[in-house]
């Protein structure tokens, strides 16, 4: 067990009555890093966070924060972590400031210190104008910002963000991304879970893909994207009757099967940066195929997820 890792899970298993929520999860997050735990609903993201934040006990395996075992020394772990769960866990009868001071006092900061920290965090999270309003009237985005501020009141060394933007409108989501990027810039270790591939791509330096309680891939967003074989070439031709001809011209130039998207559009994997595009255009031209458009698309994490799991991790599917 290395001290270098702020967060570590080794062979963690958790079974709920009839389902195996975690089936031997391994995870290691170095101090100061932002890791994204990516997967569809029910993949085991929240269960992993709950094990790491001492909310549930694993059936097997070990989990540590800064080298401290979450089962053996839960209170030492709790002093080092901040948790922002799936729901904005605020007391909506209190004002924003009261919520912060309340949590600060439970961290035994002392009232004066808690007030000071509350004031700083309200400024930092752009809540100063609403600081003394009751939270009940807050928007979803404001609640989430307050929620994160509450998690930071005792300067945790590791922050857990469980689906920090689920349920937010697009504008609030962008605001939340800025907040998380600022945290990362400050050197806080962050483990965030998300079902939004775009979100993991934007925020996390390292992504751990989890499905059915197992880690199925890990890497930087770019590494994961290159797993699908580099880039995707998309070619549109003018006339549908040239389809067969165009496919036979394209096949030797690509690294995999040419897929037909519609009558006049094909998609095929190519090696990125290999100057395939000029050859494709030249070859099609020589064969007398009238080319309308050629586009090279870097694969999205959706493509990666599909390639890894054989099914799509769409947010629609997951939230329904």
């Amino acid at each position, binding site marked *: 067990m290395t001290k270098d890792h702020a967060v570590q899970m080794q062979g963690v298993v958790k079974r709920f009555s009839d389902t195996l929520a975690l089936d031997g999860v391994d995870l290691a997050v170095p101090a100061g890093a932002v890791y994204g735990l990516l997967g569809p609903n029910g993949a085991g993201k929240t269960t992993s966070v*709950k094990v790491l*934040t*001492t*909310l*549930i006990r694993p059936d097997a395996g070990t989990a540590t924060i800064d080298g401290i075992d979450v089962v053996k020394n839960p*209170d*030492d772990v*709790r*002093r080092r*972590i901040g*948790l922002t*769960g*799936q*729901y*904005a*866990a*605020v*007391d*909506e*009868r*209190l004002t924003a400031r*009261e919520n912060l001071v*309340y*949590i600060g*006092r*439970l*961290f*035994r900061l002392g009232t004066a210190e808690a007030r000071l920290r509350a004031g700083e965090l309200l400024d930092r999270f752009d809540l100063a104008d609403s600081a003394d309003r*009751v939270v009940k009237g807050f928007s979803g985005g404001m609640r989430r910002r307050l929620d994160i501020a*509450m*998690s930071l009141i005792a300067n945790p060394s590791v922050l857990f963000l469980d689906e920090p933007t689920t349920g937010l409108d697009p504008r609030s989501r962008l605001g939340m991304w800025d907040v998380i990027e600022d945290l990362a810039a400050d050197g806080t270790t962050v483990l965030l879970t998300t079902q939004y591939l775009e979100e993991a791509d934007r925020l996390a330096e390292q992504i751990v893909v989890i499905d059915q309680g197992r880690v199925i891939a890990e890497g930087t967003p770019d590494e994961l994207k290159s797993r699908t074989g580099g880039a995707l070439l998309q070619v549109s031709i003018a006339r549908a009757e040239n389809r067969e001809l165009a496919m036979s011209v394209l096949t030797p130039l690509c690294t995999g099967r040419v897929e037909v998207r519609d009558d006049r559009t094909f998609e095929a994997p190519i090696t990125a940066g290999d100057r395939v595009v000029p050859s494709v255009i030249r070859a099609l031209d020589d064969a007398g195929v009238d080319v309308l458009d050629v586009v090279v698309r870097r694969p999205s994490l959706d493509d990666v997820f599909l390639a890894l799991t054989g099914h799509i991790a769409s947010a629609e599917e997951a939230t329904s």
Partner: protein
Amino acid sequence: MNRLEATLHDSFVEAERHLRVIPRNIELLIFATIQPIMFLALFAYVFGGSISIPGFDNYDQFLMPGIFSQSLVFGSAFTSIGLAEDLSKGLVDRLRSLPMSRSAVIIGRTVSDLVRNLLTFGVMLVAAFLLGFRFGGSVTDAVLATGLLVLFSYALSWVQALIGLAVSSVEAANSAGFIWMFPLTFVSSAFVDPSTMPGWLEAVANANPFTVVTNAARSLYNGLPVGNDAWLSLAWSVGLIVVFSMIATRKFSRSTSS
């Protein structure tokens, strides 16, 4: 901070969270106060003329301690609703991830509910006096009677805490917290003499701890000999607190939002 200091500190912070918001919800306070006054007036005027209890010249003197007792017991249902709310909103997850005392969340909740119940009780006592209720014994007896009622209500708050943590939603807590209060308070000596009930029901009513507590308080308020009822009701309350504080704290330590 040692363990005890930590528990006291955290319980105080938790209780303050709930007490701070009482004046912010005036509606709740008004309705929580109107209900017992309404019960007092309804029972006194509707049943007052037709019910006579041996040993009491005046039904009000018999009835009102029963209504005090029932109202305080009903007040304990706030505990299950409040904890279910904290649980469903993810606040219990947050609190369990903090280095704080496990029992403090429930102690703070039950203590603040107790304070709120006392406020309601104070208003009800004034109303009872206006309706003609009088202490038959000393003020000390009346204070002891109130103490026994309040302690029993506090004990039931711990039962309610367990219910609030065990059910899956606030709505369920609302029903589950109230439903058993009706048989508990009606199959008892609160409103009638149990000897008028069918034999089997009379046996249940007499064994009901609510009867024991109500009898003890009623005797003390009226300056009548209290016998063993005071000690018995104290034993019931302390016993319930000991048992249910252990079970509820254990349950809390494992509760998490689903």
